[in-house]
């Protein structure tokens, strides 16, 4: 890496799905729009800024959103339209640099270090991108400009919507100092409490500790992580070759699972959630990944390449095979995750199979199940292999969540 500071942009579309609905249906503009269903088991995909004022946010159960915002307008997601807009936005990014790392349909990192001589400095490029995205899609994007991925991401999120936040080289620590520790990646509610008990409320509090102190207080994994992020040192490169996106779900269990049948049933639930989102977004996975965490927090990850699929049972079958390869039945299981990666479009060519139901019939069956679930809830229809549902603390949404 050169000694010269990098220029990294984080571009994040503002209330992407909701903004598209408001763009395409003028009657929704200025109104609280909630993309997602209000059914008992449905969740909010995206809420417009008007709805967010009522406390509605993504991944919230639709029922709760309805309580908070009774006059909210619920809109069924139109993934093809969002995917198309996403491709238009991506085309804009590609004009400024070949180092684009998409995180989901609506956000991406761009390394424009090498583009500065061509297009001007970071803030100039950021303004140009905002203008061109607006011209191409009539949508707003917030951009953070910094010397690392982490700081750029915090910056883009700080003054949404339509934000442009620049953190010049050398000012990363000052920029982060007043922010709460919850702004640090990987710091959720539990870790936040842990930090606050140790007297760390702001990132500035973290900056005042040495790496060694943090390591002693929070262990060899979390300690150095806090040190690096807290001081704005995130060295990770923007990786364009990274799999564009993945769709995954994981569950943490209040009581560790020890029964193999229970574990497999949970994998089925996760596979269904993943399969459903794959189908909703019109994509198929070519890699199935299993994540498994033991009570002592050792975490295993196993993956396998598969023919493109969005089929719950196929995901489940592979997940179970991966499970068999790494879990002999003990110790217990604290967390399980299923992810589909290497996503390809639904119209990508597929090598046919001789012995399964014809793909078209299988697709029709899954689509019918999805419709029933949309209308009557997740429990309304099940695959024959499913025995019972486990009740964890509640599913945690996985990666690739649109915001």
């Amino acid at each position, binding site marked *: 890496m050169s000694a010269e500071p990098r220029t990294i942009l984080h571009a994040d579309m503002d209330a992407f799905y909701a903004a598209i609905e408001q763009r395409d249906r003028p009657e929704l503009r200025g109104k609280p729009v909630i993309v997602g269903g209000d059914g008992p088991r449905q969740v909010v995909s995206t809420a417009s800024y008007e709805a967010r004022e009522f406390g509605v946010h993504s991944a919230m159960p639709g029922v709760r959103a309805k309580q908070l915002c009774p006059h909210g307008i619920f809109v069924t997601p139109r993934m093809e339209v969002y995917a198309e807009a996403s491709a238009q936005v991506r085309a804009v990014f590609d004009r400024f640099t070949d180092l684009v790392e998409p995180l989901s349909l609506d956000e991406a990192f761009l390394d424009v270090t090498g583009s500065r001589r061509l297009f001007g400095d970071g803030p100039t490029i950021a303004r140009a991108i905002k203008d061109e995205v607006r011209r191409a899609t009539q949508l707003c994007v917030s951009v953070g400009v910094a010397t690392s991925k982490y700081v750029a991401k915090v910056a883009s999120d700080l003054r949404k919507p339509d934000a442009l936040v620049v953190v010049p080289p050398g000012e990363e620590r000052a920029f982060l100092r007043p922010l709460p520790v919850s702004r640090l990646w990987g710091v959720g509610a539990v870790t936040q409490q842990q930090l606050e008990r140790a007297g760390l409320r702001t990132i500035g509090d973290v900056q005042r500790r040495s790496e060694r102190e943090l390591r002693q207080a929070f262990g060899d994994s979390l300690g150095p992580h806090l040190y690096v992020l807290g001081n704005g040192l995130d060295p990770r490169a923007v990786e364009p070759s990274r799999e564009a996106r993945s769709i995954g779900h994981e569950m943490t269990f209040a009581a560790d699972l020890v029964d193999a049948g229970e574990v497999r049933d949970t994998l089925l639930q996760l596979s269904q959630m993943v399969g459903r989102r794959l189908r909703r977004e019109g994509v198929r996975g070519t890699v199935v990944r299993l994540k498994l965490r033991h009570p002592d927090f050792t975490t295993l990850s196993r993956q396998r390449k598969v023919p493109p699929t969005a089929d719950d049972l196929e995901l489940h*079958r592979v997940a179970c095979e991966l499970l068999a390869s790494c879990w002999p039945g003990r110790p217990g299981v604290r967390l399980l995750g299923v992810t589909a990666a290497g996503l390809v479009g639904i119209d990508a*060519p597929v090598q046919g199979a001789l*012995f399964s139901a014809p793909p078209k019939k299988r697709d029709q069956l899954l689509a019918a199940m999805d419709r029933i679930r949309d209308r009557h809830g997740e429990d309304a229809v099940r695959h024959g292999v499913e025995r019972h549902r486990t009740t964890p603390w509640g599913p945690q949404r996985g990666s690739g969540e649109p915001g």
Partner: protein
Amino acid sequence: MKILCDRNALQEAVTVVSSVVPVKTTKPILQNLLVRADTEGITLFATDLEMAARVQLDAVKVSKKGSVLLPARETAALLRELSDPTVTLESSDQRCRIESGGGSFVLLGESPEEYPEESQNKSGKRIEIPAGRMLRMIQETIFAAAREETRYAINGVLLDCAGGCLRLVATDGRRLAISYENIDSKVEFKVVVPLRALNTMVRALPEDGKEALQLEVGDKQIVFKIGSTQLQSQLLETRFPDYEGVLPKSADTTVEVQKAVLESALRRAAILAPNDMRMVRFEAGDNQLRLTAESTARGRADVAVDAVIKGAGGGINFNPDYILEALRVCKLDDVRLDMSDDSMPAKFTLGESFTYVVMPISGA
């Protein structure tokens, strides 16, 4: 033990038996082969516990009966290098002295008592088939068996014997090869034989062999016998998919084309098939079969060959590697392709009793 025998015959026998000796094993004793000498000659035997091979040699002068365990790799290498027409083996105390043409070698073996016993096959169902025919049938199917970890990683070939016909069937879930031969027997069995055993058979069976190969099928194992050589293998307990159900019964379009012409055209077109989704389009019409491939990164191929087209015409996409692998073992001058649309399996007729079914690539 002390024997005098023909070097060539011994070398051949050692080569056959050594083919089941594992390259790597947690039981070092399995890297040996057993030589037993009695009044009827000598027997060579080796096993890896899943497979076993045995060869009997009677053109041997046995001066002293007994048995010895020899390191398989070294024995085979040594016999290859010796130049005399005869060789003497004399053993005492787990050592074996080999004398031939002015050279003398001592191989250190292990105690023959430690070596796994040859399991006696209880009589099973028997059929006979010309060895050369069996070789062809194995070659015509084995390439289509799944090796990678897929849904149909069967790692074996089905031997389906019924109604006076022996069928060999192999599939990886996307393509399926069937080769059959009528036999003079009412015996019925349906077993899955491991690929390893069949690969060993391919090496052991003579090309164009008219000699009879005897199959003896038990509950858990199968024995192949030809002359004084016998190969025994455990059967796989895999359930084989219902292959008859996927054989297409009708087709929209029939293409007849010279095998050599198709093979070379397809090889050329396949050069530009994308790496991530190997795909060549077969388009039938106007007495031509047109093969096209396109890779967004590398370019486009378009090859047309003369063909006799009957029926509606049209196009479907195949993984070219699937077709090329089958054409490589096809001995016909003209092959026939029956195809419909991309949701239906297509059928290649590649021999009088050799059929190959391939699922097309859809949605392209």
